[in-house]
């Protein structure tokens, strides 16, 4: 019998602490597979955020930092500028990247740091118990928007992919999702593409991944993926919004 699907060397064996159906796990696997498949694992340094993925340093099977809340892109900048031969990635939640870390992500992107940013958008602060994030959907109930996000009071959700795309410097920017197997397959290809550009020393690479938080959304894992599809995808359109102009054909469709 041939084993055609198994865990990757890019991840440790340790089971995650994520809630049932939390797609942080899927995203971990895709990142782990990408660095392993590209042969980068042994020179990769990952950066865990403060958020539910804070323990990511235990799960990725490569050297890992744990950064302060929101500052992973600055840590990555310091590391990559010091050791350009290393592959640097940050793995950040929406509270981490889009709220407190807004300055750091925009500047790392704008300086064109040759790093890969995996941005997990689950429309809520998972770790701290479900507070409103900048990405929380209009009307969404959270512990700090107990009457639903009121856009007249706190504005519309931030679309980070579009903001980063708007900058001149970053050259690979995409939004993918995890709510169906098909989307996971697409997401994997895009994440791998991002790492490949970094390995080629090309550009700042940014992948936003729509993710679930069944626990804080108060939904079952099944309902949660439906919610991503119905509520999030229309507001956060999927696709690659920027690619280096001279990308090679092989990567054109990100494998799908």
């Amino acid at each position: 019998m041939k084993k055609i699907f198994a865990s990757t060397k890019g991840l440790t064996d340790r089971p995650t602490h994520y809630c049932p159906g939390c797609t942080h796990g899927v995203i971990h696997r895709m990142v782990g597979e990408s660095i392993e498949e590209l042969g980068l694992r042994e020179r990769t340094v990952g950066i865990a955020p403060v958020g539910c993925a804070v323990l990511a340093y235990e799960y990725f099977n490569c050297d890992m930092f744990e950064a302060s809340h929101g500052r992973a892109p600055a840590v990555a900048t310091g590391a990559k500028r010091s050791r350009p031969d290393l592959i640097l990635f940050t793995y950040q939640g929406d509270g981490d990247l889009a709220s407190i870390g807004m300055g750091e992500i925009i500047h790392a992107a704008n300086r064109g740091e040759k790093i890969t940013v995996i941005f997990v958008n689950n429309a809520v602060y998972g770790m701290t118990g479900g507070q409103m994030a900048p990405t929380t959907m209009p009307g969404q109930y959270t512990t700090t928007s107990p009457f639903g996000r009121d856009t007249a009071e706190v504005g519309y959700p931030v679309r980070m992919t579009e903001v980063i795309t708007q900058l001149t410097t970053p050259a690979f920017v995409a939004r993918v999702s995890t709510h169906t197997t098909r989307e996971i397959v697409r997401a994997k290809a895009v994440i791998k593409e991002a790492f490949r550009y970094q390995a080629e020393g090309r550009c700042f690479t940014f992948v936003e991944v729509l993710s679930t938080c069944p626990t804080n959304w108060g939904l079952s894992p099944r309902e949660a993926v439906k919610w991503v599809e119905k509520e999030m995808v229309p507001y956060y359109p999927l696709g690659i919004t920027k690619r280096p102009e001279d990308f090679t054909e092989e990567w054109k469709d990100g494998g799908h």
Partner: protein
Amino acid sequence: MPTIDVNIERCKGCERCIDACPQEILGMSQKLNNKGYKFAVMVDEPRCIGCSQCAIACPDVAIEVYVEGAHYQFFQY
């Protein structure tokens, strides 16, 4: 014959594999694992086509897929 292997201690019972399987041959256990979760079980093994959809969807890397010879592939993953 293609088949899958569910690591029941990693499984958290989210049921995403069940929804992902095009053959609709996965179900949930009645028993709980050590963490207190019901876990995924193969219900109709002979119909498994080894497509890996279940494994791709699993957030907890709890599924391994085995095949012998040809197997169906929806996407290149």
